[in-house]
């Protein structure tokens, strides 16, 4: 029936799904078969790890991007809570890359991930003993890998560009110190130990990381201007800058449809990103002295994630 709402909806949905037109794929069965046969000889396993490394790398940027003084456990989560209300990314796309990159950190070198055979080897490489959930909490034995220290840095700041960006958001009265010309901030993070379990579960943990700025550099003021550039109001930017001065951190941004939840784990507060019912995968961040943990899981709800966090010694 033409007026049947179900039929209309079906057609509407099908039209959109049909937009996933066949990609131009030249699937080579001979190559695929050879690939399958190589699996047990280790090639595919390495490739899988390379893929895992890419994932770890993305998460690693989160780890390293959070300036994390030792014994600042509670403060870390203050930062996360602050970030949850930020709306910076909405304006970021309007900014030139050179401006964005003056306030953001990119990795200077390619990521390398090394697969290790056991916890002892991970400890030797990472310099700390990874804490893993006891056997039985997660299915199977984890595959371990280590991402070594990575250096991140901002692009040298160009005052003229920052002024232009400030003017674009109506903050042309803000003074950018002349001595900032060419300033670069550098952060060194890691190592990170990644434990990959069955069912798309990863437990990642990183050692503390250090951030270096020019001597006497007013980091809070720098971040205040960064917030202004990214579209925050002057009052908000000032407040955030002051908090950053006391507690260097990066602002977090979550789109409106993203679910973010403060939850409690054994070691304190944690932040859960994703649907608590586990329907679309979640990410749980929490920290303990000297260590930042992230659990990433494809099918895990809030209760299970908290239970897992609490099982990690």
């Amino acid at each position, binding site marked *: 029936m033409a007026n049947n709402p179900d039929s209309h909806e079906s057609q509407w949905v099908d039209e959109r799904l049909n937009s996933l037109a066949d990609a131009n*794929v030249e699937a080579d069965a001979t190559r695929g078969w050879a690939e399958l046969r190589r699996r047990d000889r280790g090639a595919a396993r390495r490739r899988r790890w390379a893929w895992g490394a890419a994932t770890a790398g993305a998460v690693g940027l989160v780890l390293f991007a959070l300036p994390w003084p030792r014994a600042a456990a509670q403060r870390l989560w203050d930062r996360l809570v602050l970030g949850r209300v930020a709306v910076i990314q909405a304006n970021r796309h309007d900014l030139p890359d050179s401006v964005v990159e003056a306030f953001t950190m990119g990795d200077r070198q390619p990521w390398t991930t090394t697969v290790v055979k056991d916890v002892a080897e991970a400890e030797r490489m990472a310099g700390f003993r990874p804490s893993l959930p006891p056997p039985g909490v997660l299915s199977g034995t984890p595959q371990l890998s280590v991402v070594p220290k990575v250096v991140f840095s901002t692009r040298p700041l160009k005052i003229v560009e920052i002024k232009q960006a400030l003017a674009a958001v109506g903050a042309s009265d803000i003074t950018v110190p002349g001595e900032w010309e060419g300033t670069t901030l550098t952060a060194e993070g890691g190592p990170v130990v990644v434990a990959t379990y069955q069912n798309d579960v990863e437990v990642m943990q990183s050692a503390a990381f250090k951030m270096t700025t020019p001597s006497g550099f007013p980091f809070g003021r720098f971040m205040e201007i960064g917030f202004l550039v990214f579209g925050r109001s002057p009052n908000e930017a000032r407040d955030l800058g002051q908090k950053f001065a006391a507690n260097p951190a990066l602002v977090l941004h979550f789109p409106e449809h993203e679910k973010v939840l403060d939850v409690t784990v054994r070691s304190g507060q944690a932040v859960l990103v994703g649907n608590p019912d586990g329907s679309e995968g979640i990410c749980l961040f929490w920290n303990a002295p000297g260590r930042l943990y992230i659990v990433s899981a494809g099918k895990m709800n809030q209760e299970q994630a908290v239970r897992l966090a609490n099982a990690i010694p």
Partner: protein
Amino acid sequence: MRASTELVATAVSSPASFDFETLFRQHYARLTRVIARIIFEPGRAEELAVEAFWKLWRTPKVHGDAAPGWLHRTAVRLALDELRRRARRARYERVTSLVRQPKTPDELFSAGEEQGRVRAVLASMTPRQSELLVLRSDGLSYDELARVLSINPVSIGALLKRAREAFRKEYVKRYGEQS
């Protein structure tokens, strides 16, 4: 335990056993295309197609007539898992908005495109609903859907209806009715 390559070779050489290689050659290209529809990236699609066959090999209980359907479902599931993993990764990246993240070729391609929207919505839905929609979109009949997903055939219509409703609701929530 024997090495898996030995197992594959043994299976291929044994006429009395499950003809794994024939099955592979019959279905590999189609599975790769199905996966590529979902994740777009052809190279990765081939890897996931191999992964689906690898899982099949390690699941002897489905060797036989049920294997093609099982493969199809597994391929779609792997692709959707990949999609969700990418969505999660994108979320990590958004978490630190001040951290520079280069766009992947896929993101560059799909930014603002309908395919990107559809993929984002599929990635946000429950796995079962996404599977239903993708498999149906790939031409499976109700009976085939029921067999592949181990669902009572009489329930397929209702489940599909709910999946479509969920898809539309999420799509409209994100992009609006007229997108």
